[in-house]
């Protein structure tokens, strides 16, 4: 699993990558009440705001970690946004994307580096 500075985790699955937010991010957000996901088939560029997470405190964005195409979204989050707090690294994945360049994944932090990053 790899981690971004925007507190997303990225996990390779075949030629796809699964994206979610870290435990640290979910704790900072507080109770999540609404998640807006991109559409399957969307072509996204690194840095695009493609998801919105609303918690009891505030709204925040998830940025596309890399260029690619959205190939699946987690429909469970629409009915049960609380999953983001309960199981951020598992059941609360946000979307799967096909990267324009799968090797780009290697540029992100590993778990140890991410732990250092969040202090």
């Amino acid at each position, binding site marked *: 699993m790899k981690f971004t500075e925007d507190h997303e985790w990225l996990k390779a699955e075949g030629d796809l990558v699964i994206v979610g937010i870290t435990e640290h991010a979910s704790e900072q957000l*507080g*109770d999540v*009440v*609404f998640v807006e996901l991109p559409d399957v088939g969307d072509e996204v560029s690194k840095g695009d705001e493609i998801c*919105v997470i*609303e918690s*009891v*405190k505030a709204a925040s964005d998830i940025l596309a970690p890399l260029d690619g195409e959205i190939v699946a979204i987690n429909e469970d989050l629409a009915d049960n946004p609380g999953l983001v707090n309960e199981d951020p690294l598992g059941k609360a994945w946000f979307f799967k994307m096909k990267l324009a360049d799968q090797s780009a994944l290697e540029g992100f932090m590993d778990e140890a580096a991410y732990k250092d990053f969040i202090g």
Partner: protein
Amino acid sequence: MSDLKRTPLYDLHVELGAKMVPFAGYDMPVQYPLGVMKEHLHTRARAGLFDVSHMGQVILPGADAARALEALVPVSLLGLKEGRQRYAMFTNDAGGILDDLMVANRGDHLFVVVNAACKEADLAHMRAHIDGVEEITDRALLALQGPAAEGVLEALVPGVGAMRFMDVGVFVWNGAELWISRSGYTGEDGYEISVPEGRAVDFARALLADEAVEPIGLGARDSLRLEAGLCLYGHDIDTATSPVEANLAWAIQKVRRAGGEREGGFPGADRILKELEDGPVRLRMGLRPEGRAPMREGVEIFASAEGGEPIGRVTSGGFGPSIEAPMAMAYLPADTEEGTTVYGELRGKRLPAQVVPMPFRPATYKR
């Protein structure tokens, strides 16, 4: 951050694991380890303990205090019986709201509670018009709210169970004098309790020792009051909103209205009495956005899904844990009917919301 003030319960908040944030010049708990959502739901199911010691506690002494204070608020205070409390608001000459407050008649004086952020201005305002204004700085203020509040407090302070909504009284707990009102800011039954600062921690611990009670932070306090349709000063009401526009006309008794025995005689009376007669141009209303996306403060409201100018703006909005849906307050044209669909612009998209009556969740006061 070192200039932030602390309430007498600061150390207890830290010990309980609170996340502290600056609020109105104080270092206050925004949430405890339970988290905003569970704190909210716990308050509705059992009882929540809130530290509201940052609010201003003020005594207006003497038999003339009610008459003097009536010159600053559009509310009947001469008509407020001993042992009772009433909601009021300071108005300015333009008919806007300077602050909202609670006023209790305690026999030989009035006891007033004002918002933390407005405390200094309110004191100066009162001192300019009323003799002997005394700020109480040696007492903490706690709120115990929720269906279990009566049982919990009665066990410690016998007699409080007999109080009705908006009753006030003086009680003694282990030698400490408590000033108690049956009121709050959550839509729940409950109490607000002024306690000598030196006894505040002991008293809070005695309440928290009951398994029904959890400490509740400012985060849940906000979602609770919003579900209850209650205004937050500086957001839903301010100097640009009149009490009538704010849908607070219920707080203005007949005796202060046109034709009443003590008609007018408060700042901004011209505008406020006229709005009571003719109706205001805009009115604070409730919104229930469709779906789950909250419409927060600042979201602009439109009459149609495309085009046109905004007809209003959200002043408070968020997700209601008890109603399990987003909710918001907005100022809309006063002739907007309940059930109308309006549109809030969120991230460039206009999303529908229904105009609904408030509160979003019915209050459970013991009247």
